[in-house]
């Protein structure tokens, strides 16, 4: 009996495809590429790969306008993370990414696995993570739900980062009613890597073994990527995938094992399994290298008996990596993972025919062209238009705000606003000192790290004011870049490059798309003028619940370099009697 009968996979037609999340023309397009209808496993893989989350189909066109190059940029967008030069061969590798939807469903685990995912993005490239940050948005704290989400998210970030041993050195947090049912959790990580030790997601060398390492595969988060590409509704609640549980301890072992392996010359390429798990990692590796891969899915280490090939391809279990070793070095690789008590299993090999072939106990169950599926993924030029009431929003009459009665009262009201009040409650829960590099602790304008073995320092700040962006997305986008650059600059560092996380509502709505286009225009403009290219980032659309979108929130994380750590400038008054000077206007 073949796999399709055994697991009772349904036949595929347009209806099935649409239920899974493909649009009609996307399905037709897929059939054209294949020259036939896909089977059920193939359909699952295509749907995940072509989801907004994995394919950037609504944003691709607009992301092209970001400046991405400068002398110090070692790796721009398109890899797991961006890389810039810090000091000679010492480079910084960083990225920010959203984990909004999972954090709303289960705040602790959602935030924790968000941190885990971004750390993997950084260490797959060979970099040891040296700091983390996060940018958070919640509804106002006047109700239990918001408090529950805030507490859960903060302890999830703490739980994962602290155990992993990366200092969480800063971030931002903001409250507004539009985030009530759509909190934002954007996680950032930065690692250090030597220029000649950078690793890429390459599947090269016909016959080279593909090795699966890390945690076993379970039924976690199947279709998570598709879910992150839809609005929330009663219906999506019921389609909810199994919540992913993070295991920071395992990730710490995976980090050490991978970095140890990367000191050897046993491996060709490595890729983490993030959204859409094994599907996207195997396709990306094959399509980037113009090769192919063949996987024997029954060899994938699984956590539960009875897992089907479909589930194995789409599982989003955490703490897993795929690596390509040089032929003949399989046992050397295994030895290193053994030392760290981790699974390492050869599950396939690199081919040269451009196809991703999936086998199950000898039977071929899927066969897809890697490059054309990746390259011919749908790209939309979505319509956009300024919302009709935008001028009304913009011409808000400030005199309509009531006066609390003089400056002292205004100051008191401002300071008691959670958006302005001290964030110590949050960052006290994060280990922000581990690794002994944190020179400016949270509470400063930017975090500042020393770089052991160098005189330089790295400054990082994350900023975005969603209300500015709502009133005027163009100016708001500019302001986000500028604010983060200023925060970095006041520590004494020169802003060098940006990673961004673009959180918006449903891009199929013209008004939302307009916010997106205008914000990114503004950001591009500011990045060009400041000469701070965008080297990595992430887009999160569909942040809507019951058709209400969040404030446009393009989070900007600016990374800067301070040439001499001894010339740093703290953001506090240091001495009684110092002069106070206001600069700018």
């Amino acid at each position, binding site marked *: 009996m073949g796999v399709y009968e055994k697991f009772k996979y349904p036949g595929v037609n347009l209806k099935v495809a649409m239920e899974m999340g493909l649009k009609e023309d996307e399905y037709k397009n897929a059939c054209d590429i294949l020259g036939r209808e896909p089977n059920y496993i193939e359909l699952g893989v295509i749907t995940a790969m072509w989801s907004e989350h994995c394919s950037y189909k609504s944003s691709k066109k607009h992301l092209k306008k970001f400046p991405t190059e400068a002398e110090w940029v070692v790796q721009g967008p398109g890899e797991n993370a961006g890389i810039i030069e810090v000091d000679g061969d010492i480079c910084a590798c960083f990225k920010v990414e959203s984990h909004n939807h999972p954090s709303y469903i289960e705040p602790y685990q959602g935030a924790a696995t968000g941190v885990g995912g971004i750390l993997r993005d950084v260490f797959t490239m060979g970099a040891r993570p040296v700091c983390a940050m996060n940018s958070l948005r919640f509804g106002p704290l006047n109700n239990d739900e918001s408090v529950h989400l805030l507490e859960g998210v903060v*302890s999830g970030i*703490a*739980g994962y980062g*602290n*155990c*992993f*041993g990366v200092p969480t050195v800063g971030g931002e947090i903001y409250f507004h009613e539009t985030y009530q049912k759509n909190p934002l959790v954007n996680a950032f990580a930065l690692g250090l890597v030597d220029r000649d030790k950078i690793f890429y997601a390459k599947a090269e060398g016909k016959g080279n073994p593909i090795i699966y390492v890390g945690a076993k595969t379970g039924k976690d988060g199947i279709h998570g990527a598709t879910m992150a590409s839809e609005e929330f509704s009663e219906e999506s609640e019921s389609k909810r995938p199994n919540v992913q549980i993070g*295991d*920071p*301890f*395992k990730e*710490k*072992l995976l980090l050490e094992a991978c970095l140890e392996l990367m000191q050897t010359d046993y491996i060709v390429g490595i890729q983490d399994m993030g959204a859409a798990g094994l599907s996207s990692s195997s396709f990306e590796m094959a399509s980037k290298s113009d090769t192919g891969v063949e996987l024997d899915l029954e060899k994938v280490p699984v956590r539960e008996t009875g897992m089907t090939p479909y589930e194995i391809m789409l599982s989003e279990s955490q703490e897993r990596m795929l690596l390509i070793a040089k032929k003949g070095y399989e046992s050397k690789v295994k030895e290193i993972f053994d030392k*760290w*008590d981790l699974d390492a299993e050869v599950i396939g090999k690199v081919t040269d025919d451009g196809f991703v072939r999936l086998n199950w106990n000898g039977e071929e169950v899927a066969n897809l062209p890697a490059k054309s599926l990746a390259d011919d993924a749908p790209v939309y030029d979505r319509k956009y238009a300024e919302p009709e009431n935008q001028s009304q929003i913009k011409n808000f009459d400030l005199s309509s705000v009531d006066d609390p009665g003089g400056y002292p009262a205004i100051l008191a009201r401002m300071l008691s606003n959670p958006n302005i009040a001290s964030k110590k409650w949050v*960052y*006290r*829960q*994060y*280990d*922000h*000192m*581990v*690794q*002994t590099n*944190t*020179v400016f*602790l949270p509470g400063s304008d930017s975090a500042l790290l*020393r770089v*052991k073995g160098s005189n330089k320092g790295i400054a990082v700040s994350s900023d975005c004011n969603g209300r500015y962006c709502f009133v005027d997305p163009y100016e708001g986008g500019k302001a986000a870049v500028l604010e983060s650059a200023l925060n970095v600059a006041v520590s004494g560092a020169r802003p060098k490059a940006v990673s961004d996380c673009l959180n918006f509502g449903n891009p199929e709505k013209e008004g939302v798309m307009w916010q997106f286009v205008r914000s990114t225009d503004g950001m591009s403009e500011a990045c060009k003028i400041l000469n701070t290219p965008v080297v990595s980032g992430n887009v999160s659309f569909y942040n809507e619940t019951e058709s209400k979108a969040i404030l446009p929130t393009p989070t900007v994380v600016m990374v800067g370099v301070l040439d001499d*750590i001894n010339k740093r400038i703290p953001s506090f008054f240091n001495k009684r009697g110092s002069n106070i000077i206001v600069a700018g206007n």
Partner: protein
Amino acid sequence: MKAGVVVFPGSNCDHDCYYALNSILGINTEYIWHKEGSVKGFDLLVLPGGFSYGDYLRCGAIAKHSPVVDAVVDFAEKGGHVLGICNGFQVLTESGLLPGALIRNKNLKFICEYVSVIVENAKTGFTSYYNDGEILNIPIAHMDGNYYIDEKGLNDLLENEQVVFRYCDADGGISEEDNPNGSVYNIAGVINKKGNIMGMMPHPERCCEPLLGGNHGYYLFESIKNFLKGA
């Protein structure tokens, strides 16, 4: 002298301790892998902070069953000097080398911040560069630093001057308010009767350089380095 930093799976202050001992204090230092069955040739062993085995079950509970801990116990029983910091302190109480136990902070949250601690006993090999009653500014970073010991145990500790550090306010005043985690008697660090095994929740390795905002921790390592000098 030669120092060893024990590395458990999940240790994450191992590099920091190594850096403090080796790069800042110039002590010959090596890592010791948890699967090692022997710790010959060392004069000082440091059990670093972190989350050994993910801190699953109880902090330090699983690390206690590593082969290296048997060797550490043996080393300590023969008079070798052992310093447990944070998770290392938890491993020492779990394995019975130090009295008491460390349970969840009273607010159930992880706490990372600079705190004040008062030196209660500057006569140990680990604290001789301090003065009795000196106040140190030193970071803590833990979820389970709430030191528990029963009354009889506490009396023993006091009688034998085994309480080394206590949480206090900036002027050395001691009250429940300045007790970040709920520890009995505001205890932040203890030593065994023989004076060769010390455990503490605060992280001296995080404050050994003015660049990082303080160097009060430096003197702890300087004390033990001087004490073991010529060893």
